[in-house]
């Protein structure tokens, strides 16, 4: 398997389901088509330690990349749930975890990309240096596009120094509003936390603040709460709550996170939230179209991620797309014959 082979396969294709690690195939509208897998493109092409950058093929498992970078005291600051997830899949879906707080999303860490396009070409955008404004930022367009515009064959990434000291301060409350208010107070302080999350589960909640660096212990004194030094389990639990039988990702503002936690309480859901970014994940044991509709009416933009196929047929997993006409125009230019994950993002055939 080579990048050229992917491009050639696309040129001949009548429609494919693009797959890498296959851990998020249950996201988006259900589609059934022959798979085009990039899992075999699993070479870590470059790790430029001195430049804190790397170039990887999409099939590289996130865990394998993490181990490689860790040996140099570095990290790829992406920590979504990763039960076998690959870098290609994480970037294609724009998935992120608690490190989002400080380091941003895949869109903020991807420096460039090579993609195979349906016309059979291989195109590069961006670069492998951390600062570059030459040409259009097509890597951002492809990031989070769920493989509907092109198939990544190589991604270049920015790395960060891995912290050597860390701890987490935990503050608990059974009042959703109090938790959100306390989180807001902290997000407005210059703490330089690496992670700053909210959690709600089973009638009570917590605010988790991870501080890193040589002064972490000293800074923890300024954040009220219990100091947990062995915090790995806490953060693993935050990541885990982003997956489940039915998971909704809520895009809102900081001020409205209290509403999201209250909704979790009212519906018996587990909620984790990136407090500074107004992003939350609601995890349900089961759900139906009525539940999704009620939550969208109450909370605004909610994307249905994990869910049984019948639910993703019954409700639009994306909800309203702003600028949908323009998105369709972009899709039509990159994939005029609609061969890349057709139907996954847009419900009807594209106008011809």
């Amino acid at each position, binding site marked *: 398997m080579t990048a050229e082979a992917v491009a050639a396969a696309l040129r001949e294709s009548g429609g494919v389901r693009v797959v890498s690690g296959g851990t998020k195939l249950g996201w988006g509208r259900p589609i059934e088509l022959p798979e085009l897998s990039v899992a075999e493109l699993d070479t870590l092409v470059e790790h430029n330690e001195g430049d804190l950058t790397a170039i990887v093929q999409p099939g590289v498992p996130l865990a394998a990349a993490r181990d490689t970078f860790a040996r140099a005291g570095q990290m790829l600051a992406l920590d979504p749930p990763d039960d076998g997830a690959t870098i290609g899949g994480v970037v294609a879906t724009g998935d992120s975890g608690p490190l989002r707080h400080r380091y941003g999303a895949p869109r903020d860490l991807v420096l460039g990309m090579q993609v195979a396009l349906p016309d059979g070409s291989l195109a590069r955008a961006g670069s492998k240096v951390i600062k570059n404004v030459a040409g259009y930022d097509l890597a951002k367009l492809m990031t989070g596009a769920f493989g509907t515009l092109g198939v990544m064959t190589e991604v270049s990434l920015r790395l*960060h120094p*891995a912290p050597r000291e860390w701890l987490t301060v935990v503050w608990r409350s059974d009042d959703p509003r109090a938790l959100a208010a306390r989180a807001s107070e902290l997000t407005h302080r210059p703490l330089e936390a690496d992670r700053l999350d909210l959690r709600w589960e089973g009638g009570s909640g917590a605010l988790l603040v991870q501080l890193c660096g040589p002064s972490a212990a000293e800074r923890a004194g300024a954040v009220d709460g219990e100091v947990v030094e062995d915090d790995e389990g806490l953060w693993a639990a935050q990541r885990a709550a982003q997956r489940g039988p039915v998971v909704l990702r809520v895009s809102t503002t900081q001020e409205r996170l209290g509403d999201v936690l209250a909704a979790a309480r009212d519906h018996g859901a587990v909620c984790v939230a990136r407090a500074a970014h107004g992003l939350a994940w609601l995890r349900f044991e089961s759900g139906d179209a009525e539940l999704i509709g009620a939550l969208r009416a109450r909370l605004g933009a909610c994307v249905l991620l994990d869910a049984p196929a019948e639910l993703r047929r019954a409700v639009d997993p994306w909800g309203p797309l702003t600028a949908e006409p323009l998105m369709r125009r972009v899709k*039509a230019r990159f994939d005029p014959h609609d061969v890349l994950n057709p139907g996954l993002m847009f419900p009807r055939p594209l106008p011809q």
Partner: protein
Amino acid sequence: MDGGRNLIEQLRRICGDEHVVTEHHALRTYESDGLLQYAAVPRVAVLPGTGDEVAAVVRACHDAGVPWVARGSGSGLSGGALPIEDGVLVVLSRLRRILEVDLANQRVVCEPGVTNVAISAAVGPSHFYPPDPSSQIVCSIGGNVAENSGGAHCFKYGFTTNYVCGLEVVLPDGSVMTLGGKELDLPGYDLCGVFVGSEGTLGVATKIIVRVVPTPESVRTLVAFFDSPGHAGHAVSAIVSAGMVPGAIEMMDNLSIGASEQMARAGWPLDAGAALLVELDGPESECVARFDEVRALCEGAGAHEVRVARDEAERQIFWKMRKAAFPAMGRVSPHYYVQDSVIPRTALADVLDRIADLSREYGLQVGNVFHAGDGNLHPLVCYDGNTEGEAERAEELAGQIVVACVEAGGSITGEHGVGVDKKRYMPKMFTEADLDAFQKLRCAFDPDGLANPGKVMPTPRLCGEVPGPYREHPLEKAGLAERF
């Protein structure tokens, strides 16, 4: 401009007579942006006062088939806002309202003509807007969006694209679209992300939503002097390898130090081969813990002197030295040509050697100022435009530097943009297939090629119709699968 008179009358109806400029001498105000090597007088300049007026202006241009260029403060350094003769220049300087300061959600909503520094002023002192191009007092946020502007602090904080989360844009057909919003991760394509840095070729932003962040508790700044930029480069590597991400790491070479000293008079040693300005910001205790480490690493890399800014006034003098480097070069040389290439930071020593070789070969001095953390070089090629052929040789030398940077694995531009100035270098970095992919995006936004044509892409390209029809999948053909 066919039917030009009719279009000008329409523009007057939309914006009012006083906001439509057609006199040649008045139009000359707009003939160049910050890059004075290029000049063109547009047929008409129009200064809309609202987003609706911008949309109406763009629609009128579309209906008349007339190309247009958007201009913010005109401080860009790649000719991105260079007007088109026979075209319309849409000047956004009247759109300078901050529409909403939503501090609770750490968002500011503003019009494109608002200056970069005004955003930080609106949310200070508790918060600030991190991207800080050197021109931040005058440059507009709309221009920052077009160019994806950086600044001295982007090694730690990132670029414009990392802070813009929503846009209202007028597309070249005059339609208005909202891309993104105050919220992150909205479903669908990241059109906001791809619009940022598109250099005015996809449309014009009429409303911009940015993230602001808490102001760091503490800032500590030092300058270390070395025998050569190579030695200073080792210090940068040592600092980064130690796991630190300073707010800024800036380097100046001997020529730049000498020039800046004439303006800023900081009393820096004129015989130093390089000065390295390192700024740590963040929680007080973290800065304290790290600062001595930085100092030791500089000394370990051969710094013969380290000066620590004792107070804010001295810190400002340090920064004045750095920011004076461009204008001060005018005292050393009658003319100079600024480059903006990027290299992987570890290639610094090799690329500097190459630049020194080229400087000798062409007989022209080259000053070097870098954002050292992110490998963004600003070589200043000095020349005398009054000496015949020297300007051309300077440009050729600058081009050789760009090639050397691309060959080292870097980029032709780190923050100034491609504009007209660097489009000829695009093929050094991108293949025809890459450029074709760029054009696909362009055509989705601007199929008629009316928004800032002639910029970014090295050669003109047309869009054509979207091909169809669908390819039928074999399973579909066999009646075994339905597409939806």
